[in-house]
Structures are given as C-alpha cells and as structure tokens.
C-alpha cells in the first residue's frame, strides 16, 4: 500500500488488477483520474492532514483487513472523527506542518548522482526546500563511504543513503556505531540487473556460474537483491559468482571493457548501459520484489533531536517532493529539472526513459513499465527487518539481533507513534506490513524462521 493512497477508503482494492471503481484499467489510472479532480480542490494543508491521518490510521490498524472491516462498519467519516477523538489530529498536523522557528536555515544535504535521489535533488531546483523556509545546498558526493563519513563529521546535515546504511551505521557494521535515523524512504523499485550485450542469449540465471557482478556498496539493497535473486536460482553468490563493490559510473565502463558480466545497479546506470549500447536490461528489481525500498533520506539522531523544527521542515520538503514525484504526469518535468550538470549530469532522454517507465531494453524492444521507479516515503519497519535478515544471511552481522528494536529505532515510522505517546496513548507496536519477495512471503514477526528457510546462505 502506498503512502499516498487513501486509507480511509473502504472500497480501495488491496491487490493489483483493475481499479476500485471499476471504470479504469488499473488502480494507478484510477488514482490519476481521482487526483486530477482532487488536486483542484485540495490545498497543501489538506494534504498534510491526509498524510498525518493516514499514518495514524495505519499505525492503529496495521492489518489491511482489520482496517477495512472497521471502515466498512462505521464509515470513513465516523472513523476520522473517532480517530480525532482520542488522537489530536489537528495539533499533530499543525506541529508537522508549521513547527516552531527554524534552528538552522542553511543546510547541506549530500547526494550520490543516481535517480534514487530524485526527491532530494529536485526539491532544490523545484523550490520545495525554499517553500519551507530552508536554504538547502544539495552536494554531489563521490561515494557511499564518503557520504557516510561526511554525515558523521557533520559536514552534511542530512544525506541520501542506501536504506540499509542507517541500520549498518547504528549497529556499527562497517563503521563505529552511531545512532542513526531514517525518517523517509526515497524511492521504491527503480533498480535493474543489467548484463553485457554479449550475454543476450544467456537469460537463465542458472547459466551464470563464473560471472562477475558489480553492486554499488556492500550494505545496499542492490547487494541483497542480487544475492537473493541468484540464490533463488540455485547460484551461491559467495562461491559460484564474484560480486564486487564498484561505483556506479564505473559499472558501465567495466561492462563495456568486458571486466564484468553484469551488475545490479542504480539508475541511470542501467539505462545508460543500454543508451551506450554496452548492455541490456535483464530484469527490473520490481519484478523481484514489487515495492522494495532502495535509497533513503537519513539524518543522525543528534540532528533529529537537537533541531526538531529544522528536521521537521526538511522532512516536510522531502515528503512534498516525494509526493510530487509519485505522480506520473510530473515525471518528464522532473527528468528535465535534475538532468543538468549541477545535479545528475546525464542526457535528459536517459532520465526520461527511467522516470516515465517507457524505455529501450537494449535488445530492440520498447518496454512500458510505469512503476519502474516509484516514490513512497513511508519507512515500513518490516523493510528494516527484512534487510537485517539478509545482513545476517550473508554474514555481515552475527549473533542475536533485536530486529524489531533496531527497526523501530532507525526507521522512524514511529514519528506518528511518538506523537501518540505524547498524547498519553500506547501506540501499537506494528508499523510493519507483510510482503513477498519472488513469491516467498515474509512475516516480519518471525525473522529467524524466515532466515532459516533459505537453503543457500553463508554458513555461520
């Protein structure tokens, strides 16, 4: 379920295929039509109320089915009224929307030049930061380790990170443990496995023994998804193939130079490999796990607690930008805004193909996948739990892990829960949802069972 769906709508379909009113081919089209009507009458303020109310609604009814039953029996209007009875929605919205005076106005936010950073980047040229009274410089950074160090050094106030990084930093995997938070997911989906053009007949992963793959960073969704995909096809990612950490731009050059056979990388590099005729897109990661998180917006716990108003304004800008990027009709405009040298420094046609989802696959076909990349900020804690199961699966972390505890500490889905606590309520523990990866359902309540169910894993 997307954050921008309306959780107060009892008729909303919970699964893909057709739309809830029956007049559109897909739910996405239905929403687009509805949004057009809505946006005419809806002010910005209204949308915040929506976001806050949605978060609370979700926190109280983490199970889709239960929420639906409740809404069916009492009606959406009554539900909203009932909710505001015991949760100060208005106050929460105001606190979220206005905040107090900003502690700091000039901020530096680091990013890696990939399309995953779209909301963080576009918020600068398209004025989302400025609207919230912030003067944000978005700074292009050379690599994930540098972005980690510069954020730890406080050169950056907040940064674009890979969604496993705040977990790794908090747990002290690959660096000293520093409490880190991830208040928003940047993008969902949006990666792909790209193979060298010479392998265009080897589409079955079982033939990939001995291949050399690249991923951008050890603590990345790219690494976990590639390993997962290979292992599901019976290839042991530690012994049958080689997986190297390679900075994204070097992936394309190495692919062309025949140094690697393929990579699971961020865009624009997949599309760039196609554009330059060096590779083809084997599979989009959305076909491995529909709706998987990828990059994230991260800040240190210290920043969140010492500058709550600035943090609020920054998070608000990011969520606004994410909401804007979520709409398919804005994607072309966004591609044009982030293409210049100051931001992604890529040919606009490449970015357009990625963001609109109408793209050349490198084998002569034009593919249409409107949700090739999508933008949805809600940091489901079950995402964090899944990531930790994979970290443990591949030996990055060892021993007993407090999955739920770390997830709650880092993935600030609890912003809503925190507000509830302040109002004297006991927030429900679940800010999680179940999902399936390559047809295998993940139950966030039983991470160890899930972990034990994998045949291929690093012996520990």
């Amino acid at each position, binding site marked *: 379920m997307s954050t921008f769906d309306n959780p107060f709508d009892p008729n909303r379909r919970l699964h893909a295929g057709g739309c809830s009113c029956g007049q559109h081919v897909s739910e996405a089209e239905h929403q687009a039509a509805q949004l057009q009507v809505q946006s005419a009458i809806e002010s910005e303020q209204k949308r915040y109320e929506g976001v806050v109310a949605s978060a609370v609604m979700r926190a109280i009814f983490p199970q889709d089915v239960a929420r639906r039953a409740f809404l069916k029996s009492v009606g959406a209007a009554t539900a909203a009224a009932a909710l505001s009875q015991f949760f100060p929605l208005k106050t929460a919205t105001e606190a979220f929307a206005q905040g107090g005076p900003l502690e700091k106005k000039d901020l530096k936010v680091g990013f890696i030049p990939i399309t995953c950073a779209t909301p963080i980047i576009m918020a600068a040229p398209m004025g989302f930061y400025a609207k919230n009274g912030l003067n944000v410089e978005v700074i292009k950074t050379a690599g994930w380790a540098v972005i980690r*160090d510069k954020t730890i050094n406080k*050169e950056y106030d907040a940064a674009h990170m890979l969604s496993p990084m705040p977990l790794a930093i908090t747990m002290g995997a690959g660096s000293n443990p520093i409490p880190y938070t991830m208040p928003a997911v940047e993008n969902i989906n949006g990666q792909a496995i790209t193979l060298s053009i010479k392998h265009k007949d080897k589409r079955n992963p079982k033939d990939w023994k001995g291949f050399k793959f690249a991923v951008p960073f050890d603590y990345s969704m790219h690494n976990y998804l590639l390993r997962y995909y290979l292992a599901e096809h019976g290839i042991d990612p530690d012994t049958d193939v080689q997986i190297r950490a390679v900075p994204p*731009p070097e992936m394309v050059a190495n692919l*062309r130079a025949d140094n690697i056979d393929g990579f699971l990388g961020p865009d624009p590099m997949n599309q760039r490999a196609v554009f*330059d005729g060096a590779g083809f897109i084997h599979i989009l990661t959305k076909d491995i796990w529909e709706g998987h998180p990828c990059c994230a917006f991260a800040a240190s716990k210290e920043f969140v607690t010492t500058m709550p108003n600035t943090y609020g304004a920054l998070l608000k800008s990011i969520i606004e930008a994410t909401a804007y990027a979520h709409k398919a009709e804005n994607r072309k405009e966004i591609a044009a805004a982030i293409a210049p040298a*100051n931001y992604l*420094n890529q040919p606009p*046609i490449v970015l357009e193909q990625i963001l609109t989802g109408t793209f050349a696959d490198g084998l002569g076909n034009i593919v249409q996948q409107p949700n090739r990349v999508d933008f949805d900020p809600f940091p489901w804690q079950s995402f964090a739990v899944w990531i930790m199961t994979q970290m443990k699966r591949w030996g990055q972390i060892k021993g007993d892990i407090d999955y739920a505890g770390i997830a709650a500490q880092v993935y600030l889905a609890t912003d809503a829960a925190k507000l509830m606590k302040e109002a004297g309520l006991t927030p429900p523990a679940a800010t999680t949802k179940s999902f399936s990866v390559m047809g295998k359902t993940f139950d966030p309540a039983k991470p160890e069972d899930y972990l034990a169910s994998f045949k291929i894993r690093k012996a520990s």
Partner: protein
Amino acid sequence: MTSSLRFRAAVVSIVLFAAFLGIWHLATRPTAATTTMSPEYAKLMGLTATQGKSAMPGPSDVGAKLWEHLRQPFYDNGPNDKGLGIQLGYSIARVGLGYLLAVIVAIPLGFLIGMSPLISRAIDPFIQILKPISPLAWMPLALYTIKDSSISAIFVIFICSVWPMLLNTAFGVAAVRKEWINVARTLEVGTVRRAFTVILPAAAPTILTGMRISIGIAWLVIVAAEMLVGGTGIGYFVWNEWNNLSITNVIIAILMIGIVGMLLDQILARFTRMVTFPE
C-alpha cells in the same frame, strides 16, 4: 647554430603532434551502424549505439569542447557545476596552502637535521617509513580524525609534499663545505647568523630542488584527493565527468592538469636558477 637547432626541434615537435592527432582521428572514426533499429527505438538510444560513433572522442570533439570551456571558464551554476577556471582555482589554492605548510615545517626541520648528526640519525627511521606512503592511504585516516574534508585534502598535500623538501634541505645543509663554515667560525660569526649568511645561500639550490619535487607531488596528490572527497577542484571535475561517462571532458581536464603542473614546475625551476651560483 643553436637557433637553427631550436627551429628544427620545433618542426619535429609539430610533425609529431600532427601525426598524433591524425592517428587519434583515424582511430576514433565512427563505424557504420551495425544493426537496424526502428526509429522510435533509435530515438531512445545514444549515438554510440545508433550510428556506431566511437566511445572515445576524436580530436575535433575534444577541441570543440575545449573551446566551449575556455570561452566560459568562470561560470557558476550552483555547488556542483562550476567553470573549469574556478575548479582549477580551488585546486591551486588547496595545493598552495598545503605546500606552504610543508615549507614552514620542512625547511626549519631540515636545517636542524642537517646541522645536527644526532637528530639526523634519530629522525631518519621515521622519515623512511612515512615517505613512501601514498596520499590515498592517508585520506580515510585524515577524514576520520580531522572531520573536515577540505582540511583533510590540505593535510594530505602537506604530508606528501613535506618529505622531499625535508630530505633535500637536510642533505643540502649537511653538504655545505666545511671550509666555509670554518671561515665563518674563525670570524666569530654567531650560529643564527652563520645559518642565514653562510649555510642558507650555499644550500639554497638543493633546497629549491627539493621544493620543486614537492610541488610536483602536491599537484599529483590534489587530483586524487579531490576525486575521493569531491565538492570542488579539478579532481572533482574529473570524477564528475567520469560519472557522466564524458571522456571528452576527462581528456580536457587531464590536459589542464598537465599544463598547470608544468607551470608550477617552471616557476620553481626559475627560482632555482636565481639562487644557483657558479663555484
């Protein structure tokens, strides 16, 4: 005779350069498109894929792009997109600062080592170990402890350019002819005065040779350091264009790095000639 030699050398240089450009041009000519594509598909693809354009730019591509950069060396389109002139300026400023720090430390210390055999022997093992460390090995350590990327870059320049200067100064000072120092002693010249009026002029050519080696190292280091920490500077420019897979801009940056490096070296070479005297 010399002028004719110079003239002939210039001619050979030009011929070599023209041959180089010619081979480069021939090697990067586009091949004909190999596959047939539908026009809609071709619109989504780059020139390399559709027209068989070489992935390496030819000399004319580089020339055109260079002209574009030279016409507008100082534009500023926000924190991540600045003109080539501004980027070079940042790098030169960083090198200047790190190098100056190295001079301040290396020359007095070099004097001390050169004048005292005891200190020379005591410090020697440290110098020998620290001297061969690559700049990039220092970088993570610097970032971690200094906690500021631009100061880290300056520190790395300092640490890498200090050793040749230190060793050359020590060697130059130790190798000053004993007769001259004895003469100074006989005339009852004090230690400080002796250092400035006798040893310094005698050791100056060696010291400046060390400084000349150091500036070359500093300029090598800055590109690597800026590629790693990013932000500004010519090294960042190379990284940024590499990120865009723009080999044309990378070649232009390499050319610029070479030219600036040569100019820095020539400036110190001129100083060396000024202080050298015939014996």
